[in-house]
């Protein structure tokens, strides 16, 4: 495939699969997200932000070329800053504060949804297991990021005026950084993927990265969707402990499980259930993680389902 045709193929993948088309992003940009949904997204997306310098460090370590490393290391500086309280991660925490979250709590990562965690960890694993070329190709979602950032700033100013504009500085910084990073990454990929086999691997890597970003938003949506006890499922007290009885299955619960299920009322989402439990138990760090793991398992077993 010629260089031009290959570039067009990569851009075609983004046009078709980039997460700007995800239902959650469409709702964000249409202005129809509730403040709680915005907060959920900001809190969870921070986990992705924390993975970026880690995966860039991994990419850095794959290269034998000082010029490449000199260029790529700037991405880590962009995210981590040159000093404390600087850089992209810090700006994201300012966004967290601007939407009404506690920055130190967001930074603790204790309230990251499991689907989001899986998606982000899959990205780091992908970059770890692939060669330099595929790893760089997977970063080319940045080709679409610059435009999305500009759109997002306008969308926040218009639809979510309650978010202080100071919080939008992350997006502003990315409107400058993403196109520059993407241009460098694209040049590298076009220069190095010259055979069909290499181009194919790069296209597959970019496709996989689009899937990961999509799954991240799936994970955010899961956290905000109200749950109810599945039709026909009944919570009952049994001699051997609390029990849910439903079609073809009975699930024994411990007391924690019963407490969590009692909060599943057709109105509360997984995030709302976790928040209710956090309010009762301010100390233990694992409240959210255990709540989400339990609700995912109950959904898998058919005990709970989306209420709408």
């Amino acid at each position, binding site marked *: 495939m010629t260089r031009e045709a290959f570039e067009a193929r990569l851009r075609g993948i983004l046009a078709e699969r980039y997460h700007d088309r995800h239902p959650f992003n469409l709702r964000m940009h249409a202005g129809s997200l509730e403040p709680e949904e915005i907060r959920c997204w900001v809190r969870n997306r921070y986990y992705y932000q924390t993975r970026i310098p880690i995966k860039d460090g991994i990419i850095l370590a794959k290269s034998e070329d000082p010029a490449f490393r000199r260029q790529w290391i700037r991405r880590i500086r962009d995210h981590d800053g040159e000093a404390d309280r600087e850089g992209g991660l810090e700006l994201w925490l300012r966004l967290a504060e601007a939407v009404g979250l506690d920055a130190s709590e967001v930074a603790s990562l204790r309230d990251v949804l499991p689907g989001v965690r899986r998606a982000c960890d899959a990205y780091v694993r992908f970059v770890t297991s692939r060669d330099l070329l595929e790893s760089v190709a997977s970063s080319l979602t940045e080709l679409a990021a610059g435009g999305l950032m500009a759109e997002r700033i306008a969308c926040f100013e218009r639809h979510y005026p309650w978010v202080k504009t100071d919080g939008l500085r992350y997006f502003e910084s990315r409107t400058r950084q993403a196109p520059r990073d993407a241009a460098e990454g694209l040049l590298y990929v076009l220069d190095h993927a010259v055979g069909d086999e290499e181009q194919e691997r790069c296209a597959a890597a970019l496709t996989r990265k689009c899937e990961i970003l999509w799954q991240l938003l799936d994970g955010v949506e899961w956290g905000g969707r109200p749950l109810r006890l*599945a*039709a*026909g499922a*009944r919570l*009952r007290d*049994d*001699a051997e402990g609390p*029990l849910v*009885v*439903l*079609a*073809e299955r*009975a699930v024994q619960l411990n007391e924690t499980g019963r407490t969590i299920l009692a909060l599943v009322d057709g109105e509360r989402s997984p995030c709302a259930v976790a928040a209710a439990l956090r309010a009762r138990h301010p100390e233990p760090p694992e409240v959210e993680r255990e709540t989400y793991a339990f609700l995912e398992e109950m959904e898998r077993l*058919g005990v709970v389902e989306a209420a709408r």
Partner: protein
Amino acid sequence: MSAPRPWNLVAELTWRCPLRCPYCSNPTRFDLGKDELDAAAWARAFSEARALGAVHLGLTGGEPTLRRDLAEIVRAGAEADLHVHLVTAGVPLSADGLAELARAGLGSVQLSVQDAEAAASDRIAGAPVFAKKLAFAAAVRELGLPLTLNVVLHRHNLARVGALVALARELGARRLELANVQYHGWALRNRASLLPTREQLREAAAVLERERARAPGLELVFVLADYFAERPKPCMGGWGRKTAVVSPDGHVLPCHGAAELPLEFWSLRERSLRACWEDAPGMNAYRGESWMREPCRSCPERARDFGGCRCQAFALVGDAAATDPACSLAPRHAELAAARDAESAPAGDAFEWRSFR
């Protein structure tokens, strides 16, 4: 090991059936089940079962919807505070009849189809019922009842597991059970016309692996064929441990096939469910581990598979206490493997059709 508790009461309301599937798990000796319990006797059994710790009631057969008093039986189950689950072929019950069962407290439905398309499905069923089954599934969903689709797999339909998943999605099923034939009852008689090849099983498993990845909302259950596995199934989760099966004439059994074993089981006509479950010599014959011989007795896997299936041991080895010959460690495994290798084929049949309608 936890104490025996009949979590699930399986009520075989009748062994009559309008279908003739040649792999039916009912005993081949139908004379055992002609004198059916009446609804009042079932109602007594249900409240006794609840007292013994049952939470599920499965109404099955034969074809349970042949019972004219089925709504009364469903109501008795619901009144005993059991989740009432109907296992049916979808005929001859009408949509109105199903709605009446829902009003009586029916909790969920398992519907069988024999294949993914009419001609093949009707051929195995021995009756033109596929279209009625689809209409029945729609009626189940209209009533808001959770639907499980059940398909028995064998050499004649394994190639269509992908189409079966599509059918389950189309019908709005919450769960699809794809169960390879277990060679008991009629299926053992027809083994040489049913056994698939290893290749067929491998391909079906690969298709299901792909479908599972894209099937949120549909639970896919694939029950492997123990003839092709290294280890036996944990049959019924252990003999007389979690499930009580009651045959049409009231005998309390550990599984569907045990009526054909030379054991003494007791009947609800003479005794309470508690006595039949706890004290009948047959129920205690293979509880726990003390009955086991080597290689089971010292096997680290005995707590997982409970020594496999007693009915299979009896049918193939002539001794219900023998190690399940499906286990590759069993002394008589070579015979099962030889029969499997001789009879396994991708096509061809000479069925002996199930009778007793």
